[in-house]
């Protein structure tokens, strides 16, 4: 089942990208992503997971779908040269049988 169907069934909450600024004077840096139902929840989850509750840290959360990306040195014709999504569209992957277990 792909992610769109998963979300439609209410099974997967939307994906958010997390940006963290550890210290005044530095930039916000992308640290990863997480799932949350809304911005409030995403912020809380991000604070718990990516800053270990450090209150001094500034956090931005953005729905992954809202990010407009251009990465010209990451080369794939699937992506438009500018103004496209951060990641590939989630799809269903059939793992070939000969790919080994961990």
């Amino acid at each position, binding site marked *: *089942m*792909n*992610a769109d169907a*998963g979300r439609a069934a*209410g*099974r*997967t*909450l939307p*994906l958010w990208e997390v940006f963290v600024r550890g210290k005044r004077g530095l930039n916000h840096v992308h640290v*990863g*992503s*997480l*799932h949350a*139902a*809304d911005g409030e*929840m995403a912020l809380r989850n991000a604070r718990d*997971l990516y800053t270990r509750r450090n209150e001094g840290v500034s956090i931005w959360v953005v729905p992954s779908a809202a990010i407009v*990306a251009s*990465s010209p040195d*990451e*080369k*794939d*014709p*699937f*992506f438009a040269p500018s103004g496209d999504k*951060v*990641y*590939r*569209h*989630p*799809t*269903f*992957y059939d*793992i*070939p049988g*000969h*790919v*080994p*277990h*961990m």
Partner: protein
Amino acid sequence: MTATAAEAGLAGQFERTIARDARIEPRDWMPEKFRATMIRQIAQHAHSEIIGMQPEGNWITRAPSLRRKAILLAKVQDEAGHGLYLYSACETLGADRGDLTERLISGRQKYSSIFNYPALTFADVGVIGWLVDGAAICNQVPLCRCSYGPYARAMIRICKEESFHQRQGYELLMTMMSGTAGQRAMVQDAVDRWWWPSLMMFGPPDAQSANTAQSMAWKIKRHSNDELRQRFVDMTVPQAEALGVTLPDPGLRWNAERGAYDFGEVAWAEMKQVVAGNGPCNAERVARRKAAHEAGGWVRDAAAAHAAKQAARQETRAVS
């Protein structure tokens, strides 16, 4: 340019990126098999962190001192966090966490077999920290230089946290080994049960590891199974001596010519059984994860429903 020529060009770029030890990033072209391999490897690593919460998690409520309870709770919490970092890395390849969870609980994707062994005493908590996290660190430090960027970055963060875990496990064992006779016996018993499974964490011997070559070529895997296993033994034997425990291997001895420890044959047949699903705890580990996921369905649905309602309310307010 024809489609084949274009694809050949992209494949060439992919190969050159790998060859110069640079990172493949999410929007790069990559062979389908590379993507599939990465998804499977990262997902199974993530599943391992989550399942790995269980054997130690079972001892949180029974920890015999408040300090140990706090340390163990923090460690298990870290493991949940590691799972989250890894699922996040996996999603950059187009996977979906809900789908990956389904694959875990239906048995289509696996996790590290070490967690199919039972944690039977509180000493197991220390031994798991010392040996299992120790073996994991041996596996994981090289992954910090893995060719796929998001995975390598997640591994850097994870490795930093796991070094603390291993030290806390070892420190518990040191305390117990200088304690009562009962504590010392508990530690030795735990070592006797966890030593060989820890060696199995490095996978089958190189001669039987069919796909190592491709993973090495793609710089996903940077050292062979046997190489890492040997490294782990060499690092761990002196630690066991310092602790005052014996490792359950009569074949273990220093080989001056090789500059390494000779050790006995791993029971590969047992490993196969455990990997195939017949280990002591396979069923329970998956069942617990499945139960939590299913029991949580109505909660996740509620969160999604509330978010949708809030969004609709905001729109109504904006319009009116």
